[in-house]
């Protein structure tokens, strides 16, 4: 997850920031832990988490499209 975030955003999260976010998302039942694989502790989105991410991505998509339209109109 740590490396995925770095690849996607170019930002290395601090350990506290990452595990703070994991704890908050799990508390809000947006993610759930999967069985550990040796030293890896994977998580996956819950159905509610999937719904929230979809809604946020749709908002971002509309926002980006509107922004690009404005830029191209100039």
């Amino acid at each position, binding site marked *: 997850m*740590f490396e995925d975030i770095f690849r996607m955003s170019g930002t290395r999260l*601090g*350990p*506290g*920031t990452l595990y703070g976010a994991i704890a908050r998302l799990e508390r809000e039942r947006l993610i759930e832990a999967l069985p550990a694989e040796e030293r890896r502790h994977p998580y996956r989105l819950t159905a509610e988490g999937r719904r929230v991410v979809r809604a946020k991505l749709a908002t971002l998509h509309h926002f980006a499209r509107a922004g690009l339209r404005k830029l191209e109109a100039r």
Partner: protein
Amino acid sequence: MTPRRAQQLICLCPREWRVRYREEFQIFLEDHPLNLRAVLNIAGWAIYEHILSLGRGQVDQRQQSLTLMLYAYLAAVVAGLNFYWTVADTPLASTRQSYAMLFGSWNLVALGSVIALAAVVMVAAPVGFSLVRTACAEKRGDLVWRLAVPVCAGLVILTWIAAAGVATGAHWAPTP
């Protein structure tokens, strides 16, 4: 990072959080290098979690945000007042008397700090009272202990000021 260093850093985190995440966080830390940025990140986040966990279960997210803001304001106001009192016995104090503009500005800042402190105390008092009442009603010893920390810290500072005042004949502030 060595297992020992990782354990020391994990000890900074709230107990209820450690119960759930200790094992995987330990592995995560051991797989990453120890540097100042990581230590500061964990320490800052642990303080944030301790503050949030004060009212978890009893207060909603808005009240938690309010509590955090109050802590931040209180820290800024206390720092301002401390600065004011620290320089009260330095050459700046006599310089203030010679320049009306400096004198006016200084007192304006001091007055602003006192008003801000009063405002924070007025808003924080009901929140604090509510937390103490909940802690007593639910017999949450851990909550009482955590709430006692800032009070004890304040008492230690006041005791130190009083002791320094007695020992130095009330000239405890740094003098040239």
